[in-house]
């Protein structure tokens, strides 16, 4: 079966601008990312700040133009489309943002914000629009009478629901969820995650779920890809990747994730140093400057490893077969 979304060697570099900065190297935000996503599936994209995960989401939707690479969505070559064709395609691909406070127009009543997509794509008119907006608000757990209110009258969790209603209004097949719960309190986060899961079931939606929290991703994604400095360093079925990570960075991420279990004997791996600047990524394997693999060698500094199947996942590490893992994932 053809994948709903297929991304091939996506690259996005930002040049460091200004008339007087010609010599500055570009910021290599996304540096060759490929993956596929099927119908009704969720792919998690995990990594820390600056790894490029948000850029991947935005570039696929052409909220930013890619530097190189291809993306195929429902058979169409997204980056080759002209304006009108792109607009039609955008009905099918939507996004929910991280910041519930910045992503809604403060001067627009929320009913109008949700209706905007319906009107732009001429999906309905007049009273039918109002009816659809009411139905959408209910579907995301909000009282339809709230349509008359302004964003500032709502809490963070409610605004996030409004953002979801807005994305659903145009009946998409695919939604990029860009850190949708990171800014929310724990109990609200759980409500929104359940809502996203229910909507996926009911509407057959596919999600690219971008997050930095592995536990959240585990909750929602069947497959996950881990990013570091613009590249995918490991990817696979979520449970397999968590049970048996093969890339040292994945091991470190898992090790650092706080677990609400005081009896956990989890041995922590604390990485040395900081993430290098994406405008000056290390040569060869981008992770080698912080890598703790005992077999780390000269090869890591000169040869960029490719993603390859190892122990149940695909990892980009020359010595992935022998990556040390602290014992202990309680079961």
């Amino acid at each position: 079966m053809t994948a709903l979304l297929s991304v091939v060697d996506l690259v996005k570099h930002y040049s460091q601008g200004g008339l007087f900065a010609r010599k500055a190297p570009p910021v290599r935000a996304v540096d060759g990312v490929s993956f596929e996503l099927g119908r009704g599936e969720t792919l998690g994209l995990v990594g820390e700040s600056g790894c490029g995960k948000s850029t991947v989401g935005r570039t696929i939707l052409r909220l930013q133009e890619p530097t190189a690479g291809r993306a195929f969505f429902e058979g169409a070559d997204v980056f080759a489309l002209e304006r009108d064709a792109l607009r039609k395609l955008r009905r099918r691909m939507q996004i929910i943002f991280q910041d519930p406070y910045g992503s809604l127009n403060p001067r627009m009543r929320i009913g109008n914000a949700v209706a905007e997509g319906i009107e732009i794509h001429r999906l309905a008119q007049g009273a039918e629009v109002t009816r659809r907006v009411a139905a959408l608000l209910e579907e995301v757990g909000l009282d339809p009478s709230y349509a008359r209110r302004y964003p500032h009258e709502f809490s963070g969790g409610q605004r996030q629901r409004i953002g979801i209603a807005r994305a659903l209004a145009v009946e998409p097949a695919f939604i990029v969820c860009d850190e949708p719960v990171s800014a929310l309190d724990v109990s609200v986060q759980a409500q929104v995650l359940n809502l996203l899961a229910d909507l996926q079931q009911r509407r057959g939606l596919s999600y690219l779920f971008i997050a930095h929290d592995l536990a959240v991703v585990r909750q929602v994604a069947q497959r996950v890809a881990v990013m570091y400095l613009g590249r995918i360093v490991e990817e696979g079925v979520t449970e397999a990747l968590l049970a048996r990570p093969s890339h040292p960075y994945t091991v470190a991420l898992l090790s650092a994730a706080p677990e609400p279990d005081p009896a956990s004997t989890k041995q922590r791996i604390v990485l040395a140093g900081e993430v290098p600047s994406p405008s000056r990524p290390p040569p060869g394997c981008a992770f080698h400057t912080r890598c703790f693999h005992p077999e780390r060698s000269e090869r890591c500094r000169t040869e960029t490893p490719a993603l390859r199947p190892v122990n149940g996942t695909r990892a980009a590490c020359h010595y992935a077969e022998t990556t040390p893992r602290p014992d202990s994932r309680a079961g």
Partner: protein
Amino acid sequence: MSRVLEVDHLRVTFPGADGTRVSAVDGVSFTLDRGETLALVGESGCGKSLTSLSLLRLVPPAGRIEPGSIIRLGETDVLALEGESLRRIRGRRIGMIFQDPMSSLNPVFRVGDQIAEGILAHFDVPKREARARAIALLKEVGIPDPASRAGAYPHQLSGGMRQRVMIAIALAAEPEILVADEPTTALDVTVQAQILEVLDRLQAARGMAVLLITHDLGIVAGRADRVAVMYAGQIVEEAATAALFARPSHPYTQGLFNSIPKLSGPVERLRPIAGTVPAPHAWPAGCRFRPRCPIVHPKSQQMPPMLALSNEHRMRCWLAESPIATDDR
């Protein structure tokens, strides 16, 4: 064990509509012993940050610590201090780390100077000595090449580095208590691990007590001796960490645990708490959690006091006094 901090019936109010005062912290009591870590856990608006600011008398100007509140640092009554004597405890008896290092560091001063400022304020030493101590502190918090980094401005450092600088500033005057308000929330998880390791090491080396304020139960599990859970301006459950995690007893605490996605165990649908946190001016009468509670105790129209469940475990819930037989929640 020597007691270093005692807080009793702390109440902080703000102006409400029509000249009334609204409580944001409503009768909070806890203690801290030398070398101990107490975690204060809760979601936005529960009053945990305001509680910590009260300890240093840093409540924003419109807020007022109400009479009847007690904050005692050893023998010192913090609420009776004024002017110079108040300044002397800030940094020297209690140090504080804030959540967002970028807005807590002065952008126009070099980080070394910001550390030295604390040293000079509390110790009568020559500038040369203050400088040397500042560099030693930067080294102690794990900043590489500390002598030259001391000359950096905050914007030249990464988030993790800035947080380390904040820790250095907080420790500069060698306080007996460190208040850490969401010290790692703004940081990536691998950097968070580094910062928590620094805090552990420094606490052990200096025998400091730590008041750790956070919403993240995962951080609490690894490092707090005791935990107090706050909701709507009150502590609703308090226990030794192992006991709280083994037997969360207040329905709010249980709701929190049910809301957290986990990295191990089966992946199950999350069971969030229904509804939302009420704002301080709209707190229900009686038990404040009642509208969201899956069990509504017959006495819940009356505000429950803190009731003992066992020797080191208390909760603000009538269930402690008279449990109700329920089917498994």
